């Protein structure tokens, strides 16, 4: 007894009988199971290969940096990391100045940015979750995040630097204008959007029944924020701050333009100096001898390692914090 064809099928001219069903299983026609198997496995292979490609890419980056730094390491060894003299003409390659410069500018920028990004995070995530103010501030933050770093540097060079010179003259310091503080300030402006947007997302996700519990016990909004919101959102805020720090460390253009390009350890916050990123930006294109280039590449490797270490430490801190939920 054959399957009764639905009228639709016969009207459509596609006759469906039991025999056709069997044929579909075994016939060699386009659309047969065999071809779908190969297209499926081809597709899965492409997906898999793309994923593996990411691994290979990252691995390749590390390997290249390491291999190309070897000539420098063989010649100079560990003093590379402890020497403060960087003078390629006399074959002196000490990267300590840049390490200090990077860490100093990044942490000062972070310190300066925290009150602002926390304020914005609270503004958008707690006080004004909706409404015109919220949209306005959110757009402003996004605008800031979108401005290319070279334009920040350009603006800082022509506006912040003269301003800093004025301040320095009033303070009786050498009015370089450029220097660690100027670089930190422009860095701070640049990293605020990153920590602010992550922190505001996390703060807005604090469950309202927790907050209401605090308020119903008679606490003010400030106390509720201090006692309920911040503890709950701690790990998210830390993650946002970490992200901001990571960006600050790797930031190149704005810093290069206002840090003063001086290869000596900063003696005060107004001193010109250099960071790992800025020395590469300034000198790589003109470096000619292999040892010089290898040293600069080694600076790059150092920069990447520092970024990674900070990220790993940060992750541990965040995981430790976020253990409750």
């Amino acid at each position, binding site marked *: *007894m054959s*399957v*009764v*064809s*639905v*009228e*639709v*099928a016969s*009207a*459509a*001219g*596609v006759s*469906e009988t*039991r025999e056709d*069903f*069997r044929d*579909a*299983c075994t016939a060699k026609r*386009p*659309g047969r*199971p065999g071809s*779908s*198997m190969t297209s499926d496995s081809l597709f899965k292979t492409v997906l898999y290969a793309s994923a593996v490609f990411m691994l290979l890419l990252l691995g390749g980056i590390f390997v290249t940096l390491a291999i190309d730094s070897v000539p420098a390491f063989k010649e100079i060894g560990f003093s590379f990391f402890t020497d403060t003299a960087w003078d390629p003409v006399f074959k002196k390659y000490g990267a300590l100045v840049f390490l200090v410069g990077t860490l100093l500018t990044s942490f000062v920028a972070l310190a300066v940015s925290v009150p602002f990004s926390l304020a914005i995070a609270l503004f958008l995530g707690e006080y004004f979750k909706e409404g015109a103010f919220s949209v306005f501030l959110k757009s402003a933050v996004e605008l800031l995040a979108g401005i290319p770093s070279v334009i920040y540097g350009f603006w800082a060079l022509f506006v912040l630097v003269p301003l800093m010179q004025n301040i320095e003259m009033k303070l009786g310091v050498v009015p370089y204008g450029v220097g660690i503080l100027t670089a930190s300030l422009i860095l701070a402006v640049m990293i605020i959007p990153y920590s602010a947007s992550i922190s505001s997302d996390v703060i807005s996700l604090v469950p309202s029944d927790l907050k209401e519990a605090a308020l119903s016990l008679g606490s003010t909004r400030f106390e509720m924020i201090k006692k309920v919101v911040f503890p709950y959102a701690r790990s998210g805020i830390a993650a946002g701050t970490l992200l901001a720090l990571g960006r600050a460390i790797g930031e190149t253009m704005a810093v290069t333009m206002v840090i003063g390009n001086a290869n000596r350890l900063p003696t005060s916050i107004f001193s010109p100096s250099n960071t790992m990123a800025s020395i590469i930006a300034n000198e790589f294109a003109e470096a000619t001898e292999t040892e010089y280039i290898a040293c600069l590449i080694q600076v790059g490797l150092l920069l990447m390692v520092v970024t990674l270490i900070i990220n790993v430490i940060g992750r541990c801190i965040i995981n430790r914090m976020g253990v409750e939920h």
Partner: protein
Amino acid sequence: MESSVLTIEDFCAHFSGNQVVNDVSMNVEDKKVTALMGPSGCGKTTLLRCINRMHELIPGTGVSGTMKLHDDDLYSLNPIVVRKKIGMVFQRPNPFPTMSIYDNVIAGYTLNGIRIKRSEKDRIVEDALKKAALWNEVKERLHRKGSFLSGGQQQRLCIARALAMNPDIMLMDEPTSALDPKATAHIEELITALKKNVTILLVTHNIAQAGRVSDFTAFMYLGDLVEFGTTEKLFTVPEDKRTEEYLSGKFG
């Protein structure tokens, strides 16, 4: 004796070592509505999804026993072929959001790269929508997206999509549990009308629904097929004590 469309023999299914379906044997009659009912976790949905081998999407599942569709062993064929011959309607309506109503109905063909003339496509779409009692409501806007339809209409669209493939059997996994009572009533009317054209196997956790629309009912509990028979008999003079207790609401 009517012919059986689907024969299940000694079928077992397990998820990561937990036995979920124990030695179920039953026959699904042609052009009749068979309901699979039972409390949550009894294995009815698992059994249903083993028929068109959708359980294979979840790792760690294994089956034993036989399932035959018209004497063809479903487990010796390519799953894709199996699914082309079996229609499935899910708990939550799931029309393809990027496609129009028309394209949704014909999706089983177009996604599989089967080429049909435009006039035949039109006929398939119209017939399927008419069978799903949706044609009059959407014939003016076939080329608009399906996502603005109501829940009940979306579910009928999904039924039309499955019907368009001309399946030997339609599997329905709690098709009305996400719908309001009015839409539910429409779908139940539709099921009763549809059985003239296609065999239906319906999973439901709603005892009254099983009583209303099905010709045969299977009661499952904790993975076992406790009782199977005509709906009239099972609901009025159940043989097994557990069936009686379930029907009278003692558990569920």
